[in-house]
């Protein structure tokens, strides 16, 4: 081992070694960015113009949902549950706010029921009666013209 000269250019302020290290670091980072950015971009799905058919959607006739009954109908791409209670027709989003299952009408207990984790909802208000859902079912506007049921989707 020979003695290193005391004025080693590698340790002084702005040296060739530090320049090269900085350049190498820059190349590595920019190369990685160049590879990762398009992959990430590719993975994010493009925005499809949601086929939400705004306005009034015909979902059935009064005869489909006799008093004391309920039914899940498609409104655009969002399932909606229509229930016929003492207070008349009510409509709610049918997507359970817990983990996304589709609720059904439970004729036995006269509540809206989620089959996944046994969440129960009030059929006139949509509020949670029991079970894990963190919030009630959002109400939808429902109208009847002649004997046809429409849901007014937003």
């Amino acid at each position: 081992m020979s003695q290193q000269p005391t004025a080693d250019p590698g340790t002084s302020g702005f040296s060739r070694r530090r320049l090269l290290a900085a350049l190498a670091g820059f190349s590595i980072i920019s190369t990685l960015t160049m590879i990762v950015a398009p992959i990430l971009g590719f993975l994010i799905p493009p925005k499809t113009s949601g086929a939400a058919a705004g306005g009034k959607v015909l979902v059935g006739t009064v005869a489909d949902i006799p008093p004391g009954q309920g039914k899940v109908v498609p409104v655009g791409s969002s399932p909606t549950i229509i229930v016929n209670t003492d207070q008349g027709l009510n409509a709610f989003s049918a997507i359970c706010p817990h983990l996304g299952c589709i609720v059904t009408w439970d004729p036995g207990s006269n509540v809206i029921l989620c089959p996944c984790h046994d969440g129960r909802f009030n059929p006139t208000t949509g509020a949670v009666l029991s079970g894990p859902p963190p919030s009630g079912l959002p109400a939808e506007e429902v109208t009847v013209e002649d004997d046809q049921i429409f849901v007014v989707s937003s």
Partner: protein
Amino acid sequence: MTTDNPPTSPGSVDDWFESRLHWRALMDALLHVRVPLEAKTFFFGGMTLFLFGVQVVTGTLLALYYKPTPEAAYDSVLFITSDVSFGWLIRSVHHWSANLMILFLVFHLLRVFFQAAYKYPRELTWVVGIGLLGLTMMFGFTGYLLPWDQRAYWATVVGTEIAGGIPFIGDALLVLLRGGADVTEATLSRFFGIHVLVLPLALGAVVAIHLVFVHQQGLANPTKPDPRPPAVPQGRTKPFFPHYILEEVIAWLFLLAMLVVLSSLFPAGLEEEANPLETPAHVKPEWYFLGVYELLKHIPWKVVGILTPMVFIVLLAVLPFIDRNPEVRPRKRPLAIALGILTIAVLIGLTIWGYYS
């Protein structure tokens, strides 16, 4: 490397390879190692590896007929089961091997835990092992959707929604997993790609790392801690090849028989085709997610229910760095053993509860 090579006659096959590849040194390094006589692996890790091999073979066969679109997936699975020769067998073996793989993976983890084989110097082998656990569960989750029946569809809706409940990153993660806001054909394509391409390559690579680590460290001796600093282990040993391997192969043959029997008696089923408008009554996930399922039903705060299993996995991963007790014999580590048994009891309890609820 100098070793006591068995004498071979000139002109033998062994010589032919040796003169070209120096392959005796390679074989000595890979095969002619010794394992402590006290080591008892019960072959669980190797059995998991064998089942992964079965998955690769049967999965490749299934992929020849399977069609990953919502219109065709269900029918293509029906076609495999009812029209393709041995299709029912291949599909059922894939189904059972997946379940047994999880089962033996858990047995392997428990064996390593109770023998304290995760302690110095094997901490990283354990951490990599938890990575394998995660990858294997992702295999189960993504594969479950592919038949596109009601069970498949709704398990995926709930499962991805769980990922969506993770604070901060949940919303982005949900869209990334589903390929959109809902479970659609975009989700099926993604899950198919992940299941047949990404995960096999990832699991293959991570298993290789796992085995290199095991090879470098040798098998743990469950009767005494490894010496620090590392030294050639004292005590009686036996050759890995052929002694250990032979017993391992017997375990594999036992598994093969088990797969055929299970597949014949309980072939993989198929429910009605997926219907995004109707969640069937009593949808439940695969048995190894039942504990989480039951937890989510009873914890009133959704975020807590979602984060609890994740925190548990992270704690499990860093176990070797939490448990600093160098002892390996169960009697000398009562706290770890008690906590381990308690955890198993809770998990089994939740799973049984989930099964019968």
